[in-house]
């Protein structure tokens, strides 16, 4: 498996720890499935922890965007935590960095949800 996803609750925030590669195939579909399930379960505050993501391609970016919009359409918020330099660069190149609410520290990210 190119990616591992672990979901945990911190208060009323659902944190998804992602590690590995989010690329076309297993990686992107696994992330899509987790975000779809969380949306179906009514999760309104979702924090994607990407600090252990080594690689993301355009398919992975697509899943981040789709997750962001699907959670928002359900009345919730999806935020990002712990971008590596390469992932941050990729989001900046694609002009998505300012679309997402990005945090470096988990505690700060948790508090930012209202």
């Amino acid at each position: 498996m190119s990616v591992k996803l672990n979901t945990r609750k911190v208060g009323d925030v659902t944190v998804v720890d992602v590690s590995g590669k989010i690329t076309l195939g297993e990686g992107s579909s696994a992330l899509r499935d987790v975000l779809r399930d969380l949306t179906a379960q009514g999760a309104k505050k979702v924090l994607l922890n990407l600090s252990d993501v080594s690689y993301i391609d355009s398919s992975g970016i697509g899943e981040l965007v789709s997750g962001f919009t699907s959670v928002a359409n359900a009345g919730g918020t999806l935020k990002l935590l712990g971008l590596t330099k390469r992932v941050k660069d990729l989001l900046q190149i694609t002009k998505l960095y300012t679309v997402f609410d990005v945090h470096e520290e988990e505690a700060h990210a948790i508090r930012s949800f209202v």
Partner: protein
Amino acid sequence: MTDTETVETGAKVLLDRQYPSTLESVDHAEAEILRAAGEAGFDEDERHRIGMAVRECMVNAVVHGNRYNRNKQVRVSAEAGEGRFTIRITDQGEGFEVHEVPDPLHETNLLRHSGRGLFLMGAFMDDVKVRKAGPDGSAMPGTEVTLIKNLTPRDGAAENE
């Protein structure tokens, strides 16, 4: 053609291989190009950019070009010479018009799920050229994408051998 043959232009051929139209081929081609880019002297950051460009191009060739058709191949070649590291990726699909690809940075497209591959190739390489591989009017002309990264004086280990 072997991996080390030198063509008439003086460029050193580092890779020339056919891949089946599978997602596994995307990983294999990226790994082979990373090896070739290492031979050409690129550092880790540049190899990462080159690898990402090749990944995006291979995905387009396998998924959109050849549509996972196992009877179709994707040809990948790489050579270093004349100050450039040149990669060519050719599929056997219907082809597409570059000017019809939506700008992924346009505000109306920012939140689209897909459509960033060609843009990322341009962002990570110094030049990207797209042309029909076969004659105009044929049903499946295929697409040849040329990805070019300039070799800096510090690079070019393979070129100067």
